[in-house]
């Protein structure tokens, strides 16, 4: 036990709602904050560091800090899309290690479901000042379309099949059936996925994640505070983030930012993929799980389709228990941002508080990893390795 953990995740809360037409985004943020602090045995009065991303009202930390009347020593509004909250875990651990704060609160919330947003299938609106905008906006790309292109290229280069990728949805659905809050609790077969309507050829509706209202929050604390609380000790052991650029037109479309964040996070933690007992890997589309598992080192490049097939991601069945809450595929994707729920389920697994049907026995090392923004259009990536201490 020589590893010095800079910070511990003492509180984790996933809002139970998936549809919240009668609540403001600010209220949802605050409810998540209260939930995570109550989980830790702390209160808003203890918080001295606040972390949020563009989903916070106004897109900045100040307005929610004002709403919750926080007294802060440290703020961080890093916006990296859906993986912002995985990045915030790393940033908070660093800030705590530097003495900038001792109780760090991370919140996410939003309402795309009740506002009727068709996240993946509506044409992406691209503000003119973005450098790529003049050269992307005419082509009416959709988020699903971008990932459809990745899936087709992966099939072409590596012989991946849509039946293999469908196993990602199948695995998530096997887990979601045990989650009373999951938006989709139906257990799907690969035939169900392959019979669902085409959204962006070759991707079908069931290759896509859900659209939900809701949110989540995390509380990270200094080791001395963690040891004074009554919660299991979940330490931050490794972290990395990056921006995966398009390499000015010379990119390998099939390489995600995980090719950078995975190896760096493992190196910082002194761990390897074989040490991971449970993995939360962001699942906006089935193909993205295969790509990231390759880049994180769980299988060789090009083997992602074969790796996810045949139930290999189902807890208790396959080699790599993954997204045991049902993931973005079936459970929750609040504000179209899956980063925080990835960390929350990893914390549940490390505490032994996942649903008994999906709990990984002796789960001591977990990974939470994901992209932000859109692959192919400039994206972020973050990976964190968490450890349960005795």
């Amino acid at each position, binding site marked *: 036990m020589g590893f010095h953990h800079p910070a511990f995740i003492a509180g984790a809360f996933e809002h139970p709602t998936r549809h919240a037409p009668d609540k403001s985004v600010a209220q949802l943020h605050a409810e998540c904050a209260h939930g995570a602090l109550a989980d830790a045995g702390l209160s808003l009065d203890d918080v001295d560091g606040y972390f949020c991303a563009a989903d916070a009202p106004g897109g900045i930390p100040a307005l929610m800090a004002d709403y919750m009347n926080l007294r802060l020593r440290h703020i961080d509004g890093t916006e990296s899309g859906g993986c912002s909250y995985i990045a915030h875990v790393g940033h908070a651990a660093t800030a705590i290690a530097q003495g900038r704060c001792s109780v760090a609160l991370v919140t996410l919330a939003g309402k795309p479901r009740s506002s009727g947003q068709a996240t993946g299938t509506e044409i992406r609106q691209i503000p003119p000042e973005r450098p790529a*905008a003049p*050269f992307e906006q*005419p082509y009416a790309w959709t988020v699903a379309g971008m990932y459809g292109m990745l899936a087709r290229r992966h099939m072409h280069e590596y012989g991946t099949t849509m039946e293999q990728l469908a196993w990602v949805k199948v695995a998530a659905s096997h887990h979601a059936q045990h989650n009373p809050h999951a938006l989709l609790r139906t257990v799907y077969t690969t035939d169900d996925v392959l019979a669902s309507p085409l959204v962006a050829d070759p991707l079908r509706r069931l290759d896509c994640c859900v659209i939900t209202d809701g949110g989540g929050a995390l509380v990270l604390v200094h080791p001395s505070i963690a040891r004074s609380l009554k919660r299991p000790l979940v330490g931050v052991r490794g972290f990395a983030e990056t921006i995966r650029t398009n390499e000015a037109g010379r990119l390998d479309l099939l390489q995600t930012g995980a090719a950078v964040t995975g190896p760096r996070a493992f190196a910082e933690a002194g761990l390897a993929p074989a040490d991971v007992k449970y993995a939360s890997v962001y699942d906006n589309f089935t193909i993205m799980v295969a790509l990231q598992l390759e880049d994180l080192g769980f299988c060789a490049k090009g083997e992602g389709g074969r790796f996810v097939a045949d139930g290999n991601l189902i807890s208790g069945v396959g080699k790599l228990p993954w997204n045991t809450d049902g993931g973005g595929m079936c459970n929750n994707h609040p504000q179209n941002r899956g980063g925080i729920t990835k960390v929350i389920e990893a914390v549940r697994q490390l505490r032994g508080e996942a649903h008994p049907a999906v709990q990984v026995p002796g789960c001591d090392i977990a990974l939470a990893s994901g992209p932000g923004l859109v692959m192919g259009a400039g994206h972020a990536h973050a990976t964190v390795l968490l450890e349960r201490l005795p």
Partner: protein
Amino acid sequence: MNDAHALAGDPYVAAFPENRPFWEAAEQGRLLLPHCASCGQFHWHPRPRCPYCRSDAVRWKQAGGEGVLHTYTVIRRPGACYVLAYVQVTEGPLLMTNIVDADPEHLHIGMVLRCGFRATAEGRHAPVFRPA
């Protein structure tokens, strides 16, 4: 409406004055690519400073106009069906584009494509590709 006026009213042209030569050539059906005189590489989308060697010796160079289909998807929306694609032009870079004048059933990765231009709703002409 003359071309200069159409370009002036396009917010995607106005936001990047440095890209104006690209859109003026596009009006005439010519594809320009940014080329670095220092390292000899083309890049995409255009920047005035080379993203590879960091030189400011980037000049517009007329492209051959050919490329191969790198990957694609067929997007079906109410009242619309179109092909979103990445095309690798002969000069090297991958360009996001639409494939036009083609039956989606007959597309395949690696097929040779030819650049053309399509007027946008905002006023500029955007490069699109069709089977060669």
